[in-house]
């Protein structure tokens, strides 16, 4: 889970927001105006303001393909904003409702949209070519109260709606001439307009805040004011559903939710952060929050001087400043939307929050939108990558140790006078470590002249040391990366001790490379990240480690892995 992108737009509650398909434009409902923000670099800048409503805009939706924007407002109207070269042109839609419009969403086909209202109706609106006008048909029965939310089935005919009469319902909004006849599904076969395909109520029957069809459309989830989510798996028309699963949480109620694949739901609301639910038709459960870590600086209490502590006690009656939540959003999240996805899985989503005006003067960043990048296949993949890096590095250290062992044995048997090469390599020494009889002689000729010109008495004294401890200085390769690296460090140190009178700065260089090696090894061995930014560090450390060890197979394996991950990582870091 990468850190969310946070954009603070203005000091005012946000009722609803919508991104265009290319994610370059963001529409935000602010009071009675609709503000359009364009992405400039990493920020969103105000581009346009669409004014046309007299009262607060309650909901906004941008059609993915046509780019049309629909807004609805407490002034009981909906407007369709048609993009044109000279700006957006509004068209009024006849809703025929006597109360505020509360919620609007385009159907996936973009030929219709549904407007929920406080008038106990859902207006399904479509464009009538003959009259060149948007008209609406009402879904009325058996709604008993305000519609708070609607959600379209992928087939653009079925419509789920949540209401303050505590029911989540599924209707058919089939309109002749606009819709193609839908395929029969678990929700029904013949679906004339206003067919009620399902009506669901959970035990405590709180207001329904959010409804959502699963990506396949074969399951329906709804979140109610009793802090629960309920998932319904229907069997077929006129039959009781095969499973109705309610999850009562310990949290405050959820305002909005989205499906991430068929087995995960992301919901957010009065707790100011998003939570993840996982399950299937056999059961669902809350699996945790999306904000893994608190924001830096907010969670950890700063160390305070005693004077400061007493001053705080005196001024505020408490030591800690607890006016800020540890979550990214500082107030209720009103909408969660899919930001990036392919219908099957969601890779990023966005949410919005509302805020009390009283709070706005206190809190500097007030209205934020956070874009969370998500995860379902993301995290296991990073884990796999880190695991592979670790494997490559471990093999490389084993090869390094074994080769040195072999070299030493070889030298001992050949009794060669030149023994510099069994010394562990220092960074200045760039030859590959596994040099068997033949290549060993070849590398001998590349030996730096400084080492060749050792006074012979030094050479002799060292030789005697080494022949004494030659079997103990190279520990056997183990299956632990950290163990192996510490053995290598030991070798470096022994080597530096031997050469300290011959080579300038050898001890300092040895300590340097030991520190670097250990840092890389720790990063690789302890790297257990689910964020791409950190996994990148592991990759880099692994790369350095293999390059230093100079094991060609490992270097090559790292390069292949790097090339493999580069494209994928960039794609995930792009936004």
């Amino acid at each position, binding site marked *: 889970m990468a850190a969310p992108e946070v954009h603070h737009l203005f000091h005012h509650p946000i009722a609803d927001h919508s991104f265009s398909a290319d994610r370059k434009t963001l529409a935000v409902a602010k009071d009675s105006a609709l503000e359009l923000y364009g992405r400039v670099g990493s920020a969103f800048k105000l581009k346009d303001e669409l004014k046309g409503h*007299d009262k607060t805009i309650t909901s906004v939706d941008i059609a993915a393909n046509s780019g049309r924007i629909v807004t609805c407002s407490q002034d009981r109207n909906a407007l369709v904003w048609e993009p044109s070269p000279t700006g957006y042109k509004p068209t009024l839609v006849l809703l025929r409702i006597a109360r505020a419009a509360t919620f609007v969403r385009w159907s996936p086909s973009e030929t219709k949209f549904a407007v929920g209202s406080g008038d106990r109706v859902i207006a399904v609106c479509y464009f009538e070519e003959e009259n060149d006008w948007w008209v609406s048909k009402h879904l009325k029965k058996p709604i008993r109260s305000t519609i708070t939310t609607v959600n379209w089935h992928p087939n653009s005919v079925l419509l789920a709606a949540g209401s303050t009469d505590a029911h989540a319902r599924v209707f058919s909004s089939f309109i002749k001439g606009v819709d193609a006849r839908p395929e029969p599904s678990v929700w029904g076969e013949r679906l004339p307009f206003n067919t009620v395909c399902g009506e669901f109520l959970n035990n405590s*029957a709180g207001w329904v805040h959010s409804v959502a069809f699963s990506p396949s459309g074969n399951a329906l989830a709804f979140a109610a004011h009793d802090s629960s989510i309920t998932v319904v798996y229907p069997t077929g028309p006129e039959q009781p559903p095969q499973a109705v699963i309610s999850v009562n949480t310990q949290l405050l109620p959820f305002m909005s939710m989205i499906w991430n694949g068929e087995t995960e739901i992301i919901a957010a609301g009065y707790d100011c952060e998003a939570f993840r639910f996982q399950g299937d038709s056999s059961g669902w459960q809350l699996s945790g929050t999306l904000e893994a870590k608190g924001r830096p600086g907010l969670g950890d209490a700063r160390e305070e001087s005693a004077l400061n502590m007493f001053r705080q006690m005196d001024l505020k009656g408490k030591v800690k400043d607890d006016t800020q939540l540890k979550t990214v959003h500082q107030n209720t999240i009103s909408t969660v939307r899919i930001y990036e996805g392919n219908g099957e899985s969601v890779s990023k989503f966005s949410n919005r929050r509302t805020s009390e005006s009283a709070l706005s003067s206190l809190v500097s960043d007030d209205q934020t939108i956070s874009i969370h990048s998500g995860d379902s296949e993301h995290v296991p993949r990073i884990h796999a990558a880190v695991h592979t890096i670790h494997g490559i590095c471990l093999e490389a250290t084993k090869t390094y140790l074994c080769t040195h062992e072999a070299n030493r044995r070889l030298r001992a048997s050949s009794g060669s006078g030149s023994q510099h090469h069994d010394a562990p390599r220092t960074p200045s020494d760039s030859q590959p470590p596994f040099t068997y009889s033949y290549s060993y002689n070849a590398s001998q000729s590349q030996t730096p002249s400084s080492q060749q010109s050792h006074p012979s008495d030094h050479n002799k004294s060292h030789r005697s040391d080494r022949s004494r401890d030659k079997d103990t200085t190279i520990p056997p390769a183990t299956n632990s990366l950290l163990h192996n690296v510490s053995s290598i460090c030991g070798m470096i140190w022994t080597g530096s001790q031997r050469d300290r009178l011959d080579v300038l700065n050898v001890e300092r260089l040895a300590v340097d490379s030991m520190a670097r090696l250990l840092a890389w090894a720790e990063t690789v061995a302890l790297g257990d990240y689910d964020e791409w930014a950190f996994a990148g560090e592991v990759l880099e450390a692994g790369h350095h480690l293999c390059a230093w060890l100079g094991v060609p197979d490992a270097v090559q394996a790292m390069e292949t892995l790097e090339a493999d991950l580069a494209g994928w990582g960039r794609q995930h870091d792009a936004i």
Partner: protein
Amino acid sequence: MSIIQQHTSASLSDAWRTINIDALDPDSSQNFDTTTLHPPLPEVSDADVRGLNGQVRQLLRGGDAEGALRGCLENPVYSGGEGVKDAHMQTVVEVLQSIKASEMTPMLQRIHGSEGGSELIDVLMKYLYKGMSGGAANGAGGPRTSARNLTPQPTGGFSQVGGRPGATNENTGAGMSVLLSWHEKVVDVAGMGSIARCMTDWRKV
């Protein structure tokens, strides 16, 4: 520059707000029995509650406080006369008062962790709020309605120091403190969600 200018004059004045359009609409919730939206609940009679009370007392005497608590939470009185509801409330308070403070949290965690346990905790929360609303917060011995009779005090019933005559006052305070400490423990175990459900639920105890 509004295209719905014709609405503006009407919506700017507040006159339209004074008309109760719900009263004129036959389909509105005012003219509609909202209880029909929910499945009906079984009616609980006085005899049922007394029978349950007897069983719960027996469990308490046997030392099975958790069984007693479960027993009265599994059979909440949602539908029935005020008297029946109050009688059951009385049973719940009796059980709560007989459980030691140190046993509260472990017991709640066991109940919450069991199958359907979160539902039971929600029921308990409803009884706590009903108790704290002054319905029957007084101790087991006192008359059922005494707390209600005491509340119309100038202090609004919140202050427990002075202003109230007699020993029943202390009794109310003690009952209240039991409920408050239970409330704290229940919130620890079942979270804010439990309070949200208590306020939301249409099945009132």
